[in-house]
């Protein structure tokens, strides 16, 4: 007897919609009178096995004997080679198996046999990991340490060509370790795009989990190309069409001296519909342009989210979800060359400082904070930048004004997880 029967019912329904149905073997599926195939109950399966066995007893005995001999022989051969238990403690599928069940593209043969060597020798998304030259370069080693150790499953690498974008999408089930010595592992999927001009872009280094793929899909926007911002979304089986957008920037990201409303208005124009082929939907967004007299021209990358609706082949809605996308915004500045240079310097100073400073009220990095004290801190920093103070001077003044906790480096030093 549960306390919240309504919740139990709702969860059961959601689980039925969401969780994969276990794959039944051929022998465990019955054909009903109306021709529909349904799974047999365990009792029916047992009954069928007994009937089959008793109807041809001598053949069954000899088959059973052969199976026993084979099992004994295999056990004898394996003894001394493996210490693994005979039975797995859990019947649940591994994340890799879940991925194969989720993406039909992984269940077809590999399309590009030269892909593995290309990955190892060129600058693909798993670059550096296996290159001996990288191991001898201290700077690259440092970069490698930050990058972690993503290991693609070579047998499951697949390439999908997207003619409309002139690009190839690499789909790679990947295991990730923070370092080669680490025992922590996470499994999931990584995608990379090989776009014109031999440019590789990829997600990662940490792979996206299967649950996230099932819930949101996995997107990769890789512009600019030909004045546009192309991108792909990887979706699970059953999705035939996606409607994406309008996109909304994540909070509190505005290039220097632009307003969040201007950015939101610009990205809101980005939406479209795409058919899914080989689990991939391709989009080709126009890059929105903002005209501002306060800043200088440039292309800016923004983290954004876009509501997405997934449709089946029959046109039925499968899911309403939200997909994370990286977008480009073009800003056409009207500042004079002299002031543009000054603004560029101020923008660089702003980026440096905003990275190092915390909100003293909510203790989040300032670039993610939007409390009244955070806004006051921003205004104070802007006034100091306008006075052409250096980054070090500004940090000193901030410490004097708000205390040492305002700087991230002061907060993280000497922190302990002990109570």
């Amino acid at each position, binding site marked *: 007897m549960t*306390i*919240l029967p309504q919740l139990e019912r709702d969860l059961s329904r959601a689980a039925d919609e969401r969780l*994969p149905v276990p794959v039944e073997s051929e022998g465990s599926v019955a054909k009903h009178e109306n021709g529909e195939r349904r799974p047999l109950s365990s009792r029916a399966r047992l009954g069928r096995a007994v009937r089959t066995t008793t109807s041809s007893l001598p053949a069954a005995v000899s088959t059973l004997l052969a199976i026993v001999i084979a099992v004994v022989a295999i056990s004898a051969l394996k003894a001394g080679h493996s210490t693994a238990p005979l039975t797995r403690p859990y019947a649940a599928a591994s994340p890799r198996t879940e991925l194969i069940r989720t993406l039909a593209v992984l269940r077809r043969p590999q399309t590009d046999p030269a892909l593995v060597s290309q990955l190892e020798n060129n600058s693909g998304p798993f670059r550096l990991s296996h290159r001996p030259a990288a191991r001898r370069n201290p700077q690259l080693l440092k970069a490698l340490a930050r990058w972690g150790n993503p290991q693609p499953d070579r047998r499951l690498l697949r390439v999908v060509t997207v003619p409309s974008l002139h690009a190839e999408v690499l789909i790679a089930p990947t295991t990730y370790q923070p370092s080669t010595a680490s025992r922590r592992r996470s499994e999931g999927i990584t995608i990379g795009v090989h776009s014109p001009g031999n440019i590789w872009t990829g997600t990662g280094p940490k792979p996206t989990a299967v*649950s996230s793929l099932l819930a949101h899909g996995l997107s990769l926007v890789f512009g600019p190309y030909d004045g546009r911002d192309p991108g792909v979304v990887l979706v699970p089986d059953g999705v035939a069409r996606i409607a994406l957008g309008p996109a909304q920037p994540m909070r509190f990201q505005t290039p220097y001296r632009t307003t969040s409303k201007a950015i939101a208005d610009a990205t809101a124009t980005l939406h479209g519909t795409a058919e899914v082929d080989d689990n991939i939907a391709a989009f080709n967004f126009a890059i929105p342009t903002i005209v501002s007299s306060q800043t200088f021209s440039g292309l800016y990358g923004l983290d954004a989210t876009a509501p997405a609706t997934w449709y089946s082949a029959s046109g039925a809605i499968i899911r309403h979800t939200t997909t994370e996308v990286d977008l480009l915004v073009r800003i056409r500045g009207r500042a004079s060359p002299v002031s543009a240079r000054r603004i560029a310097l101020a923008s660089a100073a702003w980026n440096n400082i905003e990275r190092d400073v915390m909100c003293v009220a909510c203790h989040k990095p300032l670039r993610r904070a939007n409390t009244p004290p955070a806004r006051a801190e921003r205004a104070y920093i802007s006034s100091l930048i306008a006075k052409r103070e250096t980054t070090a001077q500004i940090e000193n003044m901030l410490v004097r004004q708000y205390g040492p906790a305002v700087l991230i480096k002061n907060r993280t030093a000497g922190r302990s997880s002990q*109570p």
Partner: protein
Amino acid sequence: MTAANRHEEDALLAAARSGGREFTAFYRHFERPVLGFFMNGTGRPDLAADLTAETFARALESIASFDPTRGRADQWLFGIARNVLAESYRRGRVEAAARQRLGLPRLILDDHAAETIARLSSDHRPATAALASLPHDQQQAIEARVLHDREYPEIAEELRCSEALARQRVSRGLRALRTRLAGER
């Protein structure tokens, strides 16, 4: 908890990946402990019910990625519950993102269910009694750190003391709790 119980819970979680009926069994097994956890954390049955719903919704979303080699089923589920509680405290509202993503309707709680949940509170349990017997400042620090999972700088700001002193209060309070509970046994 015995090893057999743990194994049973792990098996429940492993089975819960395969469909609605199995997930329901998993939910039934953990419903009361999770409701009790939130009842202790919030003191309100309606909030406890909402947070429980959010916890199981998140569990359903991430069950495919659960790796049994990295921890037990109860640790995994209560890890989610702690995060839900901590996020709700931090944002000042009951988290409902996972429920919305799964399309779960709003929970309607009747009086009987609310009373049953209220009885799951551990107000009369030895640990709670021992906590109540501690000095007020240690009590506040332990509640903020252990029950509400808040950061030390935040606790220090609220208690108007230094971060080091907040740590000291938690540490001494926990030591006193351990000593008292060991004495009762």
